[in-house]
């Protein structure tokens, strides 16, 4: 896979390091000549120095044969334009823009550009981690569109002792796995949930709060839906 990343700073560096370690072909575009020299020394990536909003520079960086463009500069307007140029002019199949301003997440999507907001992702992670004591682990996947949550069922849980088929799960939610005494069980309807079980739930942001209420009985949940 060939990835073209436009950005700066530590996020850029560590992302590139991760991608090159996975064996992806990585091309970086950065405006700052000094930073480019540093990046070229430290990473097994091609570094192009210039303005990625300029179609010539995107072309030189091989946008034509790129699978993914990732625009993570600190300026939202640059991220938007880079992604639009990449997809409209170079036909890049997937272009993703960082929305520094979380309000721009929605705007980018409305303008046809895939976006993500670190404020959304980190914010919801912290809120969800701290707002319920029974949650032991939470992982947003699909750019925050899906949550994978691991909880420990307390003795007072409304679902403790009940069979899975008798639990009225909201739509688009799933009990993926139950870990009991260190043993993972992929549950069927006839499996019973017990206090002390570690339950891994798949939810969407829209039903996350309701599902967690159902499993923990805690009403303190503040849905961000």
């Amino acid at each position: 896979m060939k990835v073209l990343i436009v950005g700066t700073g530590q996020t850029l560096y560590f992302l590139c390091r991760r991608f090159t370690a996975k064996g992806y072909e990585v091309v970086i575009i950065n405006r700052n000549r000094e930073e480019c020299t540093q990046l070229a020394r430290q990473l097994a990536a091609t570094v192009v120095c210039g303005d990625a909003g300029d179609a010539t520079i995107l072309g030189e960086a091989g946008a034509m044969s790129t699978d993914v463009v990732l625009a993570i500069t600190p300026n939202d307007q640059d991220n938007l334009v880079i992604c639009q140029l990449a997809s409209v002019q170079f036909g890049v199949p997937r272009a993703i823009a960082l929305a520094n301003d979380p309000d721009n997440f929605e705007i980018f999507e409305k303008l046809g550009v895939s976006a993500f907001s670190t404020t959304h992702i980190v914010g919801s992670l912290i809120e969800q981690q701290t707002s319920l004591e029974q949650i032991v682990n939470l992982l947003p996947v699909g750019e925050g569109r899906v949550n994978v949550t691991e909880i420990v069922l307390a003795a007072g849980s409304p679902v403790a002792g009940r069979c899975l088929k008798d639990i009225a799960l909201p739509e688009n939610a799933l009990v993926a796995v139950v870990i009991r005494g260190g043993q993972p069980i992929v549950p069927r309807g006839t499996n019973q949930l017990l206090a002390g079980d570690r339950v891994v739930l798949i939810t969407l942001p829209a039903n996350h709060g309701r599902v967690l209420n159902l499993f923990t009985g805690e009403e303190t949940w503040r849905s961000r839906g």
Partner: protein
Amino acid sequence: MNNSLYIVIVGCGRLGSHLADQLSRAGHSVVVIDKKEDTFNELSAAFSGFRVMGDATRMAVLKEAKLKQADVFFATTHEDNVNLMVAQVARKIFRVPQVLARVFDPKREQVYDRLGIETICPTSVAAEVFLMAVASGQSAGGQEAT
């Protein structure tokens, strides 16, 4: 005045302030948005419109300028990408009927034509005028020779 328009202009530099002054003088309601307060000094004393200080790439700032009611929207900052972003937001999210963005880079201009955003490229406009001057000079010269 019946045909008074509600016009929002982003960027109060030489072009933005000039447009704002002219349109305000013509009796239109004008709102100018700029990040820097001192740029509003470029406006003439006769300017009777509103000034909004803030970054137009922020939704809140565009809402403050009441973009939903605007008839016309001009993006005239010196940053192409700012102009392209705010013009798209004005056209596609606030549904402003007439939107025009200044874009210095002719390559970017072509892409945004395809995305349905009308742009003005000073480079292309100037080049056209120069070329016309050359052409008319040639024909004038040709006439002299005959």
